[in-house]
């Protein structure tokens, strides 16, 4: 086991200064990751994925729980202890341009990890090698970040993340903004590294097609909690949590004549300042019954699968009232 996350909680303070209230962005998240494994995290926008990733990487203070990476505790307050760990755990940020400092040239940005961790190498050669690995020609080294297209900036993020051949990459939306062919190249590259170096990966993505192809296991988050986790293929085959089923039913098809049957979600997205009672998904769940609004569900285990739901769905379950989108 390379990473173990236990009951992790992250709390922000939100609201105007005279009325600051705590919001729990990540709540009681636990999971383990083996070396060489790819673990996908999917879920609603704002459900805490990026915050969770930052907490694992020691960039975000936590209010509870712990993160063990290669048997060492990741603790933000001890930045000296975290820095050497980061040599083995690198991060690809969600915002590709914003995470590159605008005054540095691409060549220096790609060489930076070697300099930070004082690794002696022929930096020029390394930069050229890494650029070509991510499908960019060598003369990109002389450009500034604002002279790159969105997808090119994303690839610089990939080059930086793989530079030191880490044990674990935390990739936050690594292929957002890439066309399908370059996306394929980046994913194949990560998959090669994983075979060659036993690289483990936490893969945060909204692209469910991609998750289906690359992840061994996956977790689905809703309002800061993991509501379902398990083997990727099993979850895609038969989602057990109603939120998972809703999410999977929404994937658009690359065919203008095949608009899918979609499960539609009722009512507003709940606020973290005012979490619903009972099962927090009950306000929008097409299958909800009375019990769901009062009692919080426990995680039910069967084999690798964990589901937090009072009445997990049977395979192929149809919602009580399916709506046709379009």
């Amino acid at each position: 086991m390379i990473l173990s996350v236990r009951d992790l909680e992250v709390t922000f303070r939100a609201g105007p200064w005279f009325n600051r209230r705590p919001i729990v962005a990540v709540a009681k998240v636990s999971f383990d990751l083996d070396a060489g494994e790819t673990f996908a995290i999917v879920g609603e926008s704002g459900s805490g994925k990026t915050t969770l990733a930052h907490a694992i990487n020691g960039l975000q203070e936590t209010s509870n729980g712990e993160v063990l990476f290669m048997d060492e505790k990741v603790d933000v307050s001890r930045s000296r202890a975290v820095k050497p760990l980061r040599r083995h755990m690198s991060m690809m940020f969600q915002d590709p341009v914003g995470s590159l400092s605008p005054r540095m040239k691409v060549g220096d940005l790609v060489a930076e990890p070697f300099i930070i961790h004082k690794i002696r190498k022929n930096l020029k050669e390394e930069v050229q090698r890494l650029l070509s690995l991510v499908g960019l020609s060598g003369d990109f080294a002389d450009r500034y970040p604002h002279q790159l297209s969105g997808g090119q900036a994303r690839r610089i993020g990939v080059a930086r993340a793989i530079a030191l051949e880490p044990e674990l990459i935390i990739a936050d939306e690594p292929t957002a903004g890439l066309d399908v062919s370059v996306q394929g190249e980046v994913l194949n590259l990560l998959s090669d590294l994983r075979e060659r170096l036993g690289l483990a990966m936490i893969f945060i993505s909204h692209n469910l097609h991609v998750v289906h192809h690359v992840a061994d296991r996956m977790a689905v988050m809703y309002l800061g909690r993991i509501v379902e986790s398990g083997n990727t293929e099993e979850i895609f085959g038969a989602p057990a949590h109603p939120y998972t089923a809703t999410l999977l039913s929404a994937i658009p098809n690359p065919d203008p004549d095949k608009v899918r049957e979609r499960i539609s979600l009722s009512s507003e997205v709940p606020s973290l300042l005012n979490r619903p009672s009972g099962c927090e998904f009950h306000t929008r769940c097409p299958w909800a019954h009375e019990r769901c609004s009062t009692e919080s569900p426990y995680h039910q285990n069967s084999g690798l699968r964990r589901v937090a739901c009072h009445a997990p769905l049977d395979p192929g379950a149809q919602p009580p009232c399916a709506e046709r989108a379009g």
Partner: protein
Amino acid sequence: MNVLEIRHLSVSFAAEGGSLQALKDVSIDVPEHCIVGVVGESGCGKSTLINSILRLLPDNGSIDAGSIHFEEQDLTQAGRPKMQDIRGQRISTVFQDPMDALNPVLSIADQMLHIQYRSGLGRKEKNARSLDMLRRVRIPDPESALKRYPHEFSGGMKQRIAIAMAMMMEPALLIADEPTTALDATLEVAIIKLMKDLQSHIGCSMLFISHHLGLIAELCDQVVVMYAGEVLERGTARQIFHNPWHPYTERLLDCDPGSQSSRMRHLPTIPGEIPDLKKRQEGCIFRSRCQFCEDICHAMPDEIQSNGHHVRCHRRSP
């Protein structure tokens, strides 16, 4: 009637070691009430196209040739005050990076007030409209969201706020550069539906850029396929997705993980490299990666058209 008509547009950037031609001879129509999708490789010039329409090219970029007709004027000739008017009222844009649209030091409420400065409404009414827009893009707890600052939101929330701001202006043309990259599938569908509703309600046209082929298929009436700064093919969504004519379009569709139903470790790609935009080759630009490349491809193919389906490929020549 076309709201936007781009003809033979060429744009280049001054760069170290020579000029880089980012757009070459690009012609695109956006008909009234129509949603036109643009797809193409990362770096093929989609954002440059938008920046040219808006006349927001960086200092080292210049329009070398061509015209951009919008509401009976050529934007390539329009002066700065004219462009500011157009950008404020007639064309609104959701930029690729939501932080471009959001000011980090102003609260969301203030930013949304600012963009309504021409509406003639009172402060109260403006705030009510902001609230309504935030609710429509499904921002939880919109009242408190108005008081918060951009860094307090997730990537997808910022994107939705940017969309809300662009739609508030009720423009004649809405341009969206990958507006949903940070949205989950259910939200993406909801936002797209909202954009479509608003588009038919306001009666505007839309230029929609995305790498998400499923989304393009579902949303767009017409599709433009770009490669290395050139338009290779354009037509209706059905023509492009069901009967692609250009080998690049075909390969692109094959690469979509959405069209592979069984799980695979290695995803399909298009082998070869994107040509160097500083040293453009003569002839067909896709030639070096095309499996059907022949001698004739060293000459530039003419554009061939039938039933609104345009393509530049020698294989389609009569």
